[in-house]
């Protein structure tokens, strides 16, 4: 029994059917963690990208090393670090927030590169033309640069959304009841790992196929008339 739902171990099919509602509870947590992690990553990534592009070495260089550091260390260890070390300095976040933060931190490194590449692909000529027309720097960024960068950035970010989703099971180690953890608990108690784990795999496959299709549709819907993408 989990979440007040009993399971039935009569045979594998019945068992699978009876634990599906429980796994779907875990699925909701998985999706929540994915979305929150994505938002955190997208925001932190933007900050990192901005810091890296600052022309003062004393700022851009540490930002660059930090990004590399985040990219090169395992999510699992970063998660443990945030979960067990931050509290020692008085910063206690609920497990779920810690997990989403860890996902966000890890992916901010990747996403900052996406922003950088997206912005750099826009030629210097665009900024200069804007300047020659006396368009303010803020408006240059928001009206000239961003609309051209977004169609390049969004699909790449979308792909990371799918990756984040696949990394959520790592959060099970800090007691977050996402799908895999739920499946393991069922396995631990029913001594049948095959059914719940296979179900989780199948659910993941469906989930990523849907998410990838969603990203593709979003990509097609983006306003990018006239923007040369290559």
């Amino acid at each position, binding site marked *: 029994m989990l979440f007040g739902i009993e399971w039935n171990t009569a045979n594998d099919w019945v068992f699978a059917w009876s634990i599906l509602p429980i796994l779907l509870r875990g699925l909701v947590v998985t999706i929540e963690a994915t979305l929150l992690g994505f938002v955190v990553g997208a925001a932190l990534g933007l900050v990192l990208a901005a810091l890296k592009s600052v022309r003062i070495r004393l700022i851009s260089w540490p930002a660059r090393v930090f990004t590399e*550091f985040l*990219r*090169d*260390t*395992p*999510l*699992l*260890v*970063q998660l*443990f*670090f945030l979960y*067990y*070390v931050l509290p*020692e300095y008085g910063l206690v976040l609920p497990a779920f927030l810690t997990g989403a933060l860890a996902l966000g931190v890890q992916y901010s490194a990747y996403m900052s590169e996406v922003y950088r590449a997206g912005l750099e692909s826009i030629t210097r000529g665009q900024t200069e033309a804007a300047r020659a027309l006396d368009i303010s720097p803020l408006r240059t960024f928001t009206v000239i640069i961003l609309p051209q960068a977004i169609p390049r950035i969004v699909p790449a970010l979308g792909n990371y959304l799918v990756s984040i*989703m*696949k*990394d*959520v*099971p*790592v959060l*099970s*180690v800090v007691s977050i009841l996402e799908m*895999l953890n739920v*499946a*393991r608990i069922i*396995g631990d108690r029913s001594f*049948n*790992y*095959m059914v719940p*784990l*296979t179900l*989780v*795999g199948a659910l*993941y*496959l469906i989930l*990523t*196929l849907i998410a990838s299709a969603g990203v593709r549709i979003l990509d097609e819907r983006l306003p990018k008339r006239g923007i040369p993408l290559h």
Partner: protein
Amino acid sequence: MDWLSYLNPLMEGAWVTIRLALYSTLLGAVFSFLFGIGRLSRSLPCRWTSIALIEVFRGTSLLVQLFWLFFALPVLGQALGMDLRLPPVVAGTLALSLNIGAYGAEVVRGAIQAVPRSQHEAAKALDFTPRQTMWRIAIPQAIPEMMPSFCNLAVQNLKDTALVSLIGLGDLAFQAERVRNFTQDSVGVYTLLLLMYFGMALVLAGLMRLLETHVGRWRARGV
């Protein structure tokens, strides 16, 4: 601080991690070529098997795959009357390398397809068989093209080895958990752990870059 006392078990774990990363990267490269070339194959069963494997391993979470291989596969084996109880090292290596293989397959495929048509024509004019053209002309030219992506995959894989600690393999992350269990010194252990992974990743990336220049030396210009 008694950081020094951590070093021994951590080093032991690091050695496991290094070997695991090495094996799974090598095996992963093999899978990459197998799936990647399989996808380009003219035989339908070959192509569809490759596509299915690629989609399954890209579409599900590595940790799920790891647990499945470790916990679920033996049960399936029992049902089939086979002994599929993989030791942790094997399950870990297999999950990691199948993952690299699925991602690497796309890299391999893209690089092979990027070999200009004129090279295939030149080979045909010299009467190479299609297979010889693939193995002697297309693939060797595609390899340098693949290297940057493989470098990223290798680093990603190194990080992913940390997950095998969750099926009880005594790698770096596992040993760190053990030490922390004992000392309750989260700050020290995890800081050390992050730095060790970072260091290993830097070394790995450096080695991959050396390899990249080596396999791509024919591209170098200048007399």
